[in-house]
């Protein structure tokens, strides 16, 4: 309809509308990208899986924050043995393998953790493995000796025995300069080429051994990781479509039903209207959040159940009163009487004659309503009523809250989901307010 087209033309003159529309389009773009690039099942795996996180550092900050600070924080390095340097020596009834894992370290800070992953494919008896750490200044530090079969993780950072021997946390002690005379000076990073020497004895000709050293950094990806080594990017990306879908569905569900019910009440008046009004008044004093908490605690915290409850409780909301006030004068408009006079049915009058009249005023309200529901979903998640499966912004905030992220200084963990939430609110609000200016006749000339 040309009225809508004219309205859209007019919208372009509002910078806030253009900026708001830009933000909304960006969020929609991110949503589409996330859903296409990380399919649902893969996203669930990435968020709830386990194995794929083990090469991520714990609570690592985002790379961009490190760039801003100078960019010297260590990155995660995965070190594998160089096949050409593996030495094999035959022994009676066994085989000795010398496997050097070398890497260059030049960051300013210590790594956050050191782990060795061993995979021994053995037949008769377990392989015997001995690990030795060689620093750039040629100090040789024996680490552990153990028997290995199958997959095994050697967590150097959490080896208490080693810690006692080195008198410091292993990943700091192993990577620092030789202690000077003044003992109380803080340890300093020693840069250069390190080597983890792995000596193994295998007892069967077909046995094989593979090893991997992970030197965990202190930054990871664009969003960092959480306490479970999960990449927060998954939650931030997938949180977008979920937040938008929840906000949009809840806003559509509540406004459309509320509007139709208000119109039905206004049109039929009498008992129908009275029942609708009384239901609304009762519903208006029912507190939404405690009911949602109850449903979440007693029944299910699935996001779709929550959406249903939000819409159900939103049907007879205060909006009914507002729409009723707007529709009452329209009910008496001469064109409605004319429509009755040429035989239009009740349903037609409500849907085609009354509702379209207030739609232009309604759309801005509708647009500004979307972020309200996005925030509601985040609040629920923050209260621990988030969807148990899906990664959402609220869940990230909830994890940050329970892990005392701000206390530990993990600002990125709180700021990135909060920033996205605010961006969503800002985009829809700017667009909605501009729409209001264009479509709400009372504001047009102000």
């Amino acid at each position: 309809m040309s009225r809508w087209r004219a309205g859209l033309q007019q919208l372009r003159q509002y910078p806030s509308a253009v900026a708001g529309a830009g933000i909304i389009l960006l969020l929609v773009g991110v949503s589409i990208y996330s859903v296409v690039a990380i399919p649902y099942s893969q996203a669930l795996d990435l968020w709830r899986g386990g194995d794929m996180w083990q090469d991520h550092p714990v609570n690592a900050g985002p790379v961009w924050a490190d760039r801003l600070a100078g960019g010297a924080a260590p990155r995660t390095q995965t070190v594998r043995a160089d096949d050409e340097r593996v030495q094999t020596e035959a022994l009676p009834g066994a085989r000795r393998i010398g496997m050097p894992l070398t890497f260059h370290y030049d960051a300013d800070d210590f790594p956050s953790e050191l782990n060795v992953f061993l995979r021994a494919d053995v037949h008769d008896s377990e392989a015997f493995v001995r690990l030795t750490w060689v620093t750039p200044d040629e100090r040789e530090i024996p680490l552990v000796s153990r028997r290995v079969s199958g997959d095994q993780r050697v967590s150097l950072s959490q080896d208490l025995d080693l810690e006692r021997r080195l008198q410091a946390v292993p990943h700091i002690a192993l990577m620092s300069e030789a202690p000077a005379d003044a003992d109380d000076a803080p340890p300093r990073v020693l840069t250069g080429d390190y080597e983890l020497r792995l000596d193994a004895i295998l007892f069967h000709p077909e046995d094989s051994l593979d090893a991997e050293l992970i030197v965990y950094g202190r930054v990871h990806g664009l969003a960092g990781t959480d306490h479970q080594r999960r990449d927060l990017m998954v939650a931030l990306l997938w949180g977008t479509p979920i937040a938008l879908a929840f906000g949009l569905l809840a806003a559509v569900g509540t406004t459309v039903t509320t509007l139709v019910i208000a119109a039905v009440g206004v049109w039929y008046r009498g008992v129908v209207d009275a029942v609708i009004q009384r239901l609304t008044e009762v519903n208006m004093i029912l507190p939404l959040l405690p009911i949602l908490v109850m449903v979440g605690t007693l029944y299910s915290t699935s996001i779709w159940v929550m959406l249903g409850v939000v819409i159900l409780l939103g049907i007879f909301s205060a909006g009914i009163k507002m729409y009723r006030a707007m529709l009452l004068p329209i009910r008496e408009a001469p064109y409605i009487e004319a429509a009755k006079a040429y035989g239009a049915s009740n349903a037609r009058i409500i849907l085609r004659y009354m509702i379209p009249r207030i739609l232009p005023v309604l759309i801005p309200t509708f647009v500004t309503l979307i972020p309200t529901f996005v925030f509601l979903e985040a609040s629920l998640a923050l209260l621990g009523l988030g969807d148990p499966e899906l990664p959402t912004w609220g869940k990230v905030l909830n994890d940050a809250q329970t892990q005392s992220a701000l206390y530990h200084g993990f600002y990125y963990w709180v700021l990135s989901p909060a920033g996205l939430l605010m961006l969503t609110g800002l985009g829809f609000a700017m667009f909605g307010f501009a729409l209001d200016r264009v479509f709400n006749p009372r504001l047009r000339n102000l």
Partner: protein
Amino acid sequence: MSEDAPLHVNDLHTWFELRQWGFLRVGSVRAVDGVSFALARGEAVAFVGESGCGKSSLARTLLGLHRPSHGDVVFEGESLATLSDAGLRDYRARVGYVQQDPFGALPPFMDVRRILAEPLIVNGVRSRAERERRIRAVLDEVRLGPAEDILAKFPHMLSGGQQQRVVIARALVLEPTLMIADEPVSMLDASVRVEILNLLRRIQQERNLTLAFITHDLSTVRHYAERIFVMYAGRVIEQAPVDDLLDEPQHPYSRALLAALADPDAANARQQRAVPGGEPPSLLSPPAGCRFHPRCPYAMAGTCDVDDPPQFEPRPRHYSACWLHR
């Protein structure tokens, strides 16, 4: 009364019940209170009277928008009181309605094509081509053109006169045999009033429509109607052919109404008019006897305030409900 008459109204009452707390009856507003007349095919009549005399309620009852509380409307042999809901809708389609406020009468969010198509859609004209044909025909009839231009416009883009032509076109598009025009020109500029009235008159004659005007503008009635009904407090108090009533009003109320007309003559500038004081009576509890007696300069105590006057015929085909004619 003529046998040919397609519209008979017999002792029609339209009362609106007032209720307290939604169910306690506390009284009724007697908007139309005992009206009888018959309209012949192709006849144009005017209902005149002050605001609140029941003209518009009568019109709405004739349109089938209000159910009569008592009495009946018989249109082309069908009684309104016995029609089913579906029958009522069908009946409404056969009565055209032209409203007072042309802008309010047009839904602001529909273009003219849609506005004119709506009655056809509602009444089951499914073919788009058929609708388009009838819309163009009726636009041509109300002299609105060029059709291409007008059909795509929204009501706010049209002038008051054009809007009223669209309203008339909408009333005509279902090809009614009875048309009710509720003060069709009172909201229009003086310059376009005559045009619209002439248009209505011409269409009425070309289509041989029965046309009921509702107006309080007595000055234009003479040229656009054949008979006049003067209404007061829900009743028809005088009815007569138009010239007869305007030249020789019989009822004291009609005389007062005519005396209040502006007469474009300089000699009358200082003339004091004998306009009855007081206000129209409450329709909730109308006065006993003649409804006009509290304001009537000729009221006869013991008669006018006790007995309801019947319709007398002081002159041929000129009926007046006043005890003076006894």
